[in-house]
C-alpha cells in the first residue's frame, strides 16, 4: 500500500519540477557556475601555494547557491496562494508527500552534481603543473555531488520550516557568502562544524581541522537532517 502510493506522488512531484522553468534553470546553473568559476580560479592561480584539489573545485562555492536555489524553489512554491492545500488534498499523507518532494530535490541534484564534479575533476586534473591526483579528483567529484545534494536538502528543509523561499534565501546566502568568508581560515574552532565548512573539507587535498572529508560530510548531513526533521514536524503539526 505504502510503496504503491508513493510512486504516483513521486511522479507528480517530478512533473511539478520539470514544468517549472525556474527549477530547470537552477538545476542547469549548478554545472554552469561550478565549472565556470573553477576554470576562472584555475586560470588566475599558478597552483603552487594553494590547495590543488580546492583550486579545482573552487566553483562549488558558487554552484552551491544554485543548489540552494533549487531546493528552496521546489518547496517555496507550495507555500504560495494555498498551493500546498491542493498538493495535500491530492496526497493527504503528509509524510509521503514530503518524502516525494525531497526525493525530487535530492535525486536531480545528486545526478547533476556528480556529473559536474566529474567534469570539474577532469578539468582540474588536466591542469599543469600540480593539479589534484586522480584519486583526489574522484573524492572531490563524489564529495561535490553529496555536498551539493545536502545543501539543496538543507534549503528545502529550512523553507518548509520558514514557509517562505525569500526568508530561506535571505538566511542561507548571506550565511554562506559572508559568515564563512569572514571566519575565513580560522580553523580548529566551532566554525568548522558549520554545514558549509564541514561539508567542503572533502574538496580539499589536505585538512588540519577536527573533521576529515567523510566526517565533514556527515556533519553537513546532520545539519540537513535537522532542517528536514524540523520541516517535517512543522508540516505535520500545522494546518496547511
Amino acid at each position, binding site marked *: *500500500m505504502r510503496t504503491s*502510493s508513493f510512486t*504516483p*506522488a513521486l*511522479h*507528480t512531484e517530478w*512533473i*511539478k519540477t520539470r*514544468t*517549472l*522553468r*525556474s527549477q530547470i534553470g537552477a538545476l542547469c546553473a549548478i554545472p554552469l557556475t561550478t565549472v565556470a568559476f573553477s576554470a576562472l580560479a584555475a586560470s588566475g592561480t599558478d597552483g603552487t601555494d594553494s590547495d590543488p584539489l580546492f583550486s579545482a573545485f573552487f566553483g562549488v562555492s558558487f554552484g552551491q547557491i544554485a543548489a540552494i536555489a533549487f531546493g528552496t524553489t521546489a518547496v517555496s*512554491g507550495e507555500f*504560495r*496562494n*494555498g*498551493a500546498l*492545500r*491542493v498538493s*495535500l*488534498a*491530492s*496526497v*493527504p*499523507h503528509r509524510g509521503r508527500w514530503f518524502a516525494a518532494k525531497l526525493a525530487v530535490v535530492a535525486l536531480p541534484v545528486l545526478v547533476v552534481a556528480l556529473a559536474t564534479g566529474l567534469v570539474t575533476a577532469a578539468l582540474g586534473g588536466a591542469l599543469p603543473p600540480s593539479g589534484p591526483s586522480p584519486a583526489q579528483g574522484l573524492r572531490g567529484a563524489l564529495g561535490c555531488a553529496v555536498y551539493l545534494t545536502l545543501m539543496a536538502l538543507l534549503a528545502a528543509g529550512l523553507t518548509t520550516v520558514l514557509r517562505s523561499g525569500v526568508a530561506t534565501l535571505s538566511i542561507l546566502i548571506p550565511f554562506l557568502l559572508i559568515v564563512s568568508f569572514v571566519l575565513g581560515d580560522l580553523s580548529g574552532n566551532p566554525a568548522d562544524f558549520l554545514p558549509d565548512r564541514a561539508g567542503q573539507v572533502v574538496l580539499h587535498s589536505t585538512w588540519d581541522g577536527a573533521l576529515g572529508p567523510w566526517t565533514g560530510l556527515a556533519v553537513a548531513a546532520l545539519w540537513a537532517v535537522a532542517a528536514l526533521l524540523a520541516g517535517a514536524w512543522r508540516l505535520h503539526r500545522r*494546518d*496547511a
Partner: protein
Amino acid sequence: MTSIDVHDLTKEYGSRRAVDRLSFQVLPGRVTGFLGPNGAGKSTTLRLLLGLDRPTSGTATVGGRPYVTLADPLRRVGALLDPQAAHGSRTGRDHLLALAVSNRIAADRVDEVLAETGLAPAARRRVRTYSLGMRQRLGIAAALLGDPEVVLLDEPSNGLDPEGIVWIRGLLRALAAEGRTVLVSSHLMNETASFADHLVVLGRGRLLADTPMRDFIDARVHPRVRIRTTDPAALRTALARHGHEAVEHPEGHWTVSHARVDDIGPLVSAAGVPLLELTTEEGTLEQAYLDLTAADAEFAAPQHLRHQEA
C-alpha cells in the same frame, strides 16, 4: 451514495472559534448551498473536511471515512478552494497533469476536463496569463478531474463572466442530477438561489439553518400580492371589507401582505376595481437570509466589527 457528515465540529484559532460545534449532513443528488457572510467559517469547514486543518474537536467524514484515509482521494472528492493555487509559471494542462498522476487518473481525463470547462484553447498557456475567471475554471477542472462522487466548491462564481455564471449553474445542476453530492459555498444570495436545492447556513461558525431552500424562504418571507390600479380608493375599500390592508409604494403600486393572488384576484374583480397588474411577489433567498440573521441577535450585533475585519 456518498454523503458528507459533519459532527460536532469545532475549530479554534487561539481564542477565536472559527467553527463552533457544527453538525450537518450533505446528501447526494442535490446541490447544497453553503451560506454565510465572509468569516462565518465556511472555508474553514471545507478545509477541515479535506483534512488540511486539524479540528479542535469533532469529526468531518466523507462516506463515513475521514478524507485523509481515502486512497486516491481525488477519485472520491473533488474540491476547489482557491483559484489562485495553481503556480503561475506552469501551464494549465501541466497543473492538471501533475494532479492526475498523483491519483492514478488517466492523462486523457486532463483533456476531457479542460474541454468541459472551456479551457482547451488556453491549456498550454501559463496560468499567470489567465484571468480570474479562467483560474476559477481551472480550479473547477481540477475538482472534476477524478470524476468524483463528491464535489466541494468554495465561491466558484467569483470572477466568472455572465456567461461563466450561467455555465456553472448548469454544471452544478447536472452534477447533482447525476447523483453526486454537491456542496457550494457562497456569500451571494441571488447566485445561490439560482442553483441550490438545499441550504446550510452558518453564522459565526454556528449552524443557523439546514433546510430545503424553498422551505427556508417560505418560513421567513410571507407571500405578498402586488397590485396596480387606476382607482386606489375602490381597491382599498374592497380589500378592507375582507380584512386585507393595502400599502402604497412610491413607485405607484400597492402591496398586500400575507395574501395570495388566488384570494385577492376574485375579491377585487367582484368589487369591480379596475386592474393594471395583479402578481405574486415571491420571497427571495436574500430576504429570508436577512430575516434569519436579524433574528439571531448575537449574530447581528457585532455587524460593524465584521465589516472592519473584512
